């Protein structure tokens, strides 16, 4: 996991690469077909989700399974404001993010007292409860779901998701290097020791949780307008969280770009597999996850510990150095 100031060289290389990629991404829609635009929008979303999960799961070490709860909160808030109050998307979206933060602080102050498996199952329960709550309320349209106004163009969502991704990855870079980030790292390594040193864990954990939640919530709001139709099982869907976790862990939790790399690789693989055989792609995917976990667990773990993230690890490997 990120530990202290990073070697400058690794940082510059990674940042340059990122800048180039960003420029390419900005120009992409002008040359690509709508299918690829849609595909990339999805990748950006999962890259953002994976990076967001990283804030609570990777840096803080709390395996959160409740991210989907915030996706749903963001989606429905945006939807309800747009449909029932005729609020334009640009204003409804941040409202969704705000509500996600509020929910995260409220639930976090309760749930973050638990650890490990118990925290995981409690956050999972949170998603399931909210899904059923949403299907019982009238304002959400209940089980029938809700239709948002049809957007005029899909390309707008590409840029919204890209912006969200950039923000999420930036948070992943900035947070661990901040004072709050150091405290969170200390809590992750040894919570009791941190407490002895005067760091009161709960507020810091809540910050990490809320930081993660806001991105899930904003992603949910964009998703809702993008897909036009939302219902409780679609947005309060544990799949969002699980995919984010798989991508983050595969790519390297505790690094800034790891989750994004994981999202790109895994989502692309998913597309390839679907093109080969729609029927068997889940089997291949599952087998792939199993093989990766067995044959590269140390590899992933090494990535956990590498200061400077994947870029540094690769460079070190190329130079034959140990990390």
């Amino acid at each position, binding site marked *: 996991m990120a530990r202290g100031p990073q070697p400058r060289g690794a940082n510059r290389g990674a940042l340059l690469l990122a800048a180039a990629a960003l420029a390419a991404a900005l120009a992409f829609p002008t040359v690509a077909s709508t299918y690829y635009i849609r595909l990339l929008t999805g990748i950006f979303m999962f890259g953002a989700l994976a990076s967001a999960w990283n804030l609570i799961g990777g840096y803080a070490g709390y395996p959160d399974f409740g991210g989907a709860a915030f996706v749903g909160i963001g989606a429905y808030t945006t939807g309800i404001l747009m449909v029932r109050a005729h609020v334009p998307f640009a204003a409804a979206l941040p409202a969704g993010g705000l509500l996600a933060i509020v929910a995260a602080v409220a639930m976090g102050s309760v749930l973050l007292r*638990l650890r490990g498996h118990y925290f995981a199952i409690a956050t999972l329960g949170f998603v*399931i409860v909210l*899904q059923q709550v949403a299907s019982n309320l009238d304002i959400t349209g209940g089980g029938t779901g809700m239709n948002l106004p049809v957007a005029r163009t899909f390309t707008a969502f590409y840029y919204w998701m890209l912006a969200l991704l950039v923000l999420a990855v930036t948070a992943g870079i900035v947070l661990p290097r901040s004072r709050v980030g150091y405290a969170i790292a200390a809590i992750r390594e040894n919570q009791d020791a941190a407490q002895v040193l005067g760091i009161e864990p709960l507020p810091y954990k809540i910050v990490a949780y809320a930081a993660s939640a806001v991105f899930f919530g904003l992603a949910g709001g964009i998703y809702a307008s993008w897909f036009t139709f939302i219902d409780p099982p679609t947005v309060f869907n544990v799949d969002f969280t699980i995919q984010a976790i798989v991508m983050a862990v595969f790519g390297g939790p505790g690094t800034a770009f790891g989750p994004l790399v994981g999202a790109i690789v895994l989502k692309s693989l998913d597309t390839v597999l679907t093109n080969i055989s729609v029927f068997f792609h889940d089997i291949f995917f599952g087998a792939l996850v199993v093989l990766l976990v067995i044959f590269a667990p140390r590899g992933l773990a090494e990535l956990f510990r590498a200061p400077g993230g994947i870029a540094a690890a690769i460079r070190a490997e190329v130079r034959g150095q140990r990390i």
Partner: protein
Amino acid sequence: MSVGAQIALQNAVNGLLIGGTYATVGVGFSLVWGTLNIVNLAHGALVMLGAYATYWLFTLYHLDPLLSLPLVGGALFAFGYPLQRIVINQVVRAPFLITFLLTFGIELVITNLALAAWTADIRSVTTAYSGRSLALGPVVLPAVRIATLAIAVLVAFGLQVLMTRTRLGSAIRATASDQEAARLMGIPIAHVYALTFAIAAASAGIAGGLISLSFPIFPAMGAGYTLIAFVVCVLGGLGSVPGAFLGGLLLGLLQTYAAAWLGPNFDNIVAFGVLIAVLLVRPAGLLGRAARFRG
């Protein structure tokens, strides 16, 4: 007896009977979690395999589902042992997320192989006695559910006897409480782990067989039962077989009453609301060991 009381009584009966199913699903899961410290996301998939095994034995060979339970249990035992020994054992001491990912991948593979082999068609096992029920005064007791509860008691009892009165049980408990000490004492850890997992798989298979009698079965059914296993373990307490049994009954009652009083669309709200409350107030559950995971 007033109508209200009759309904309440019938619901209590329904809840306990369905709780028997939940208990059987949960005891194996609790065993693996408590001993190997592995949250087996593929547990529900094993339940599904047991259900299909029962279905095919019944459809192809006309073997009565209740009679085929030992066979199904044996088959899942034989499946679970190498699965643990060869695959899952690789990550037994890895961080939680790694084991989670692994069992998640295994669940994907098993579920989708089943889908490819048996299609998404929904099946059920209907025997001559499927519709029979026993009327006890104002209450109706479906025959199949009674049998399920009886077998759940047997399975839980059997597991408890295994854990407390056999050498294997002592070995399992020793390994669970202190792996290094157990290893120093010459206990073959990998073998013990694999046996534990195989036993849990067998119980999952039996649960699946029982489920096929009462509920529709389809390849994707596993995920729901894994979730149920989670709740049962938390309610009843990790590592305690009687606890898992009671947890199953409790969950059955909770869901049934929630569905009856609030409406069927509140069953998860109540079940998981209680789950979260239990985790906060008494994470050890009804009968579990003192919590090691309070933060």
